């Protein structure tokens, strides 16, 4: 029982610091005023026309992002999982790239691509057609939906591709042999089996859209509308209305919890990371003449998510003026010089980001490894509760977590605001579910027999941990480390509330530069962030020896 006590006290303390105390403060703040307890903030949030509008905007955005994500992700998943479309490895690689691209960088790039007048695409359109009107205007709700969806559809893709890969062709053949036509098979067998994956991909995309701050801040604010997240952020402007920020956080928190609960029920116990199990043989459908058009369609989607945005970022990084044509007189390295050598905040921010990334990933990887080990080996009474708690932070959107942490840690007894510690807590909490999911799968893959075999031959518990468990879990834990690291270096929605000038991170610097219109420097920092991300992804792929997205070939 002694070891149970240590784990329990540890878990309980961590829970209090990471979640319970901040959320309690959030709740208290949302009903407090100088005159005592009040529901006035809620009344204000729900009745003020501008705020009600922002709530509605968020609903519209999230719903459509979910639908568009399905429209993109489902066909793509089907093509790569069940047909002989060429270039599958390439497509999967690009989906992965879209998955790890920080959405706010995408939004920023799309400003340069599809601003109604200076946007590159619109300029080309005008040049080609002679039209007066832009092809697309990214500063609109549909524009925002599009830019968010091209980075959230991988959630749908992963869910569906993994499910399709598990449905044996036998099941479909069984229906065909009974006389069902191809469409009937798709409608009556394949679709119902994939439906939970589709719905749960929809929910995951909706959750992403609900919690996103960067893209709406970049695209919605110039167009004159708010979402909940940008509204929360603007409540922090002077004079601050923290109580209102707390109150408007509540519907976001509630919606997330309900949606996740729904998704969990849909998927049963399969969790959201990857669907396990074995199926029979799977046959690929021959597309025939449609092979090349199908590939082109996939690449068109990827052009939106990857090629065009990355291209324009690279152009902006090396240009004096991003909107001017590429040419020798527009080519410069000054943006790099400025970003790295003249702008003092950059280096500090890169150092802070890397420091936070490494520390959070290291502490987090060890923590989730211990938690996953304890829960998988059932070392303590109530291990199921520990597992639940490790997953719990997934219901807290980043910006809500930040508001809660801000309230909790700007006052005694724990004044952490202004230190990297508060960002560390935010990141650790936010990334815990992802890391835990990865570690859990790792330990689930190591049969307890392997440890018992060591024990009985004379090795103590710790020795077995060192000689057997650790080497076997190593690659899985490295992967968890990388997942956390990637999550941390791109984090914006919590950082934007919690940073101080001395604790700026890269995403915040990018956002700061954005507000000032420093395109060149943003592009440079964005490229740095992408490079860091892709190096880390490469490490994961090596460690796991497989695709990060989890779907099998």
């Amino acid at each position, binding site marked *: 029982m002694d070891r149970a006590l240590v784990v329990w006290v540890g878990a309980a303390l961590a829970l209090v610091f990471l979640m319970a105390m901040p959320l309690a403060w959030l709740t208290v703040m949302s009903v407090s005023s100088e005159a005592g307890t009040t529901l006035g903030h809620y009344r204000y949030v729900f009745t003020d026309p501008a705020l009600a509008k922002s709530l509605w905007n968020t609903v519209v955005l999230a719903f459509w992002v979910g639908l568009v994500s399905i429209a993109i992700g489902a066909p793509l998943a089907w093509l790569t999982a069940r047909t002989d479309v060429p270039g599958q490895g390439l497509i999967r690689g690009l989906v992965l790239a879209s998955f790890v691209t920080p959405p706010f960088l995408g939004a920023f790039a799309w400003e340069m691509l599809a601003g109604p007048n200076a946007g590159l695409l619109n300029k080309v359109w005008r040049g080609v057609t002679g039209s007066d009107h832009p092809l697309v205007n990214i500063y609109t709700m549909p524009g925002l939906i599009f830019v968010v969806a091209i980075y959230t559809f991988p959630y749908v893709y992963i869910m569906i591709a993994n499910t399709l890969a598990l449905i044996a062709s036998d099941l479909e053949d069984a229906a065909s042999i009974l006389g069902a036509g191809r469409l009937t098979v798709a409608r009556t067998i394949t679709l119902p089996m994939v439906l939970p994956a589709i719905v749960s991909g929809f929910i995951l995309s909706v959750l992403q859209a609900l919690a996103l701050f960067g893209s709406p801040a970049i695209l919605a604010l110039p167009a004159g509308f708010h979402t909940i997240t940008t509204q929360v952020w603007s409540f922090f402007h002077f004079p601050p209305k923290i109580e209102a920020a707390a109150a408007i956080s509540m519907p976001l928190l509630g919606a997330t919890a309900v949606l996740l609960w729904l998704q969990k029920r849909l998927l049963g116990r399969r969790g959201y990371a990857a669907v396990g199990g074995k199926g029979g043989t799977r046959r690929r459908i021959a597309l025939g003449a449609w092979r090349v058009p199908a590939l082109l369609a996939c690449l068109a989607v990827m052009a939106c998510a990857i090629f065009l945005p990355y291209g324009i970022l690279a152009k902006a990084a090396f240009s004096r003026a991003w909107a001017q044509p590429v040419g020798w007189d527009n080519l410069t390295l000054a943006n790099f010089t400025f970003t790295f050598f003249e702008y003092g905040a950059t280096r500090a921010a890169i150092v802070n980001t890397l420091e936070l990334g490494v520390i959070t990933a290291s502490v987090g990887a060890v923590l989730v490894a211990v938690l996953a080990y304890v829960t998988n080996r059932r070392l303590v009474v109530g291990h199921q509760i520990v597992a639940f708690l490790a997953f719990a932070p997934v219901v807290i959107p980043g910006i809500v977590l930040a508001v809660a942490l801000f309230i909790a840690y700007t006052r005694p007894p724990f004044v952490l605001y202004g230190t990297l510690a508060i960002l560390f807590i935010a990141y650790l909490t936010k990334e815990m579910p992802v890391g835990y999911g990865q570690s859990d799968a790792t330990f689930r893959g190591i049969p307890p027999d392997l440890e*018992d075999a060591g024990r*009985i*031959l*004379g*090795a103590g518990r710790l020795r077995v941990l060192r000689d057997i468990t650790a*080497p076997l879990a190593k690659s899985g834990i490295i992967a968890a480390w990388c997942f956390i690291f990637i999550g941390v270096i791109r984090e914006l929605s919590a950082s934007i509330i919690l940073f101080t000038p001395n604790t700026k991170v890269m995403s915040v610097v990018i956002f700061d530069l954005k507000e000032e219109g420093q395109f060149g420097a943003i592009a440079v920092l964005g490229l740095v962030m992408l490079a860091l991300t892709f190096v880390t992804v490469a490490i994961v792929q090596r460690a796991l020896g497989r695709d990060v997205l989890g779907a099998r070939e």
Partner: protein
Amino acid sequence: MSAVRLKGLTLRYGGVDVAAVDNLSLEIGDGELLALLGPSGCGKTTTLRLVAGFLDPEAGEIWVGDRCLSAPGNVVPPERRRMAMIFQSYALWPHLTVAQNVGYGLRFKRDLARADREKRIAEMLRVVQLAGYEARYPGELSGGQQQRVAVARALVVEPEILLLDEPLSNLDANLREEMRFEIRRLHEAFGITTLYVTHDQAEAMVISDRIAVLQAGRVAQVGTPDALFERPRTRFVAEFIGKTNVVDGVAAAPDVVEHGGVRLTVAGARFTPGAGVALSVRPHQIDLVEPPGAPAPNVFAATVRRSSFLGDSLDYEVTITGSDLVLRVVGPATRRLAPGQVVGLRIDPSACVPLDGA
């Protein structure tokens, strides 16, 4: 001395009322190979894991010779029990080579010089016919080879006690049969006190010195394979070990059991007349004879209802004339009876084994 004594072991899993192991007592002699036999859920694996020390009993004691390994409040951890175990999954470490797997247990033998260690690994690999495979990883071996690595890893440490948990269940039928003899041979060569868990009675009978049949966490019967087969004490044991006919009847005399007009004389029995009695009669101990002309003790006329050709023998289902008693009978392949044919059955009184708990 490495005789093992289990005294009143009890363990319940997480608040369940039914004990997985229920007041179980058992002795395994020094150098003996004892099989724990039973259907799944009978507590045999739990018992093995209690002996290994992976589980702590709620009550009871485990002794090896004069060493107490487990008593309430004093439990020796697995690594200090001087045992070795072969797992159903083999539990080979995929990140270690064959030589490293086999040599792992020797790392904890401080007095063993490095050179001696290598020598013992090589010797053991030779014994299990895996010389030359030292640098392979388990993933690169066939199932049978993996199994031999598991055996080598367990034996190389010269354990006082060897525990085997259904080690053959992952092998295909031919290999399984071969490995039974192999294990027996190794046991005879090394003479290690061995506890062997299996649900396969044929396997248990080939390998073991004695078998303990477990039922619902308790020992139903312990004995040599012969004794268990010839003199099963309970219906459960009789039915679990080999095929049998159980005849439920009433004692008509101290040595006679009657079932629906069929009277069976039982050798050496002392029944209370009128009491309910169950008898076990093995199919191969029923002789097929010519239909009797006149009534004789333990000889009956019967009709063949079904016959199945098994290659080296025939399996018949027969109904005794003038009775509802249906018996299974094994006949020689040289003479085939067709369904509907009338035959005679002779059952030796010594082939009728009374069972407890009728």
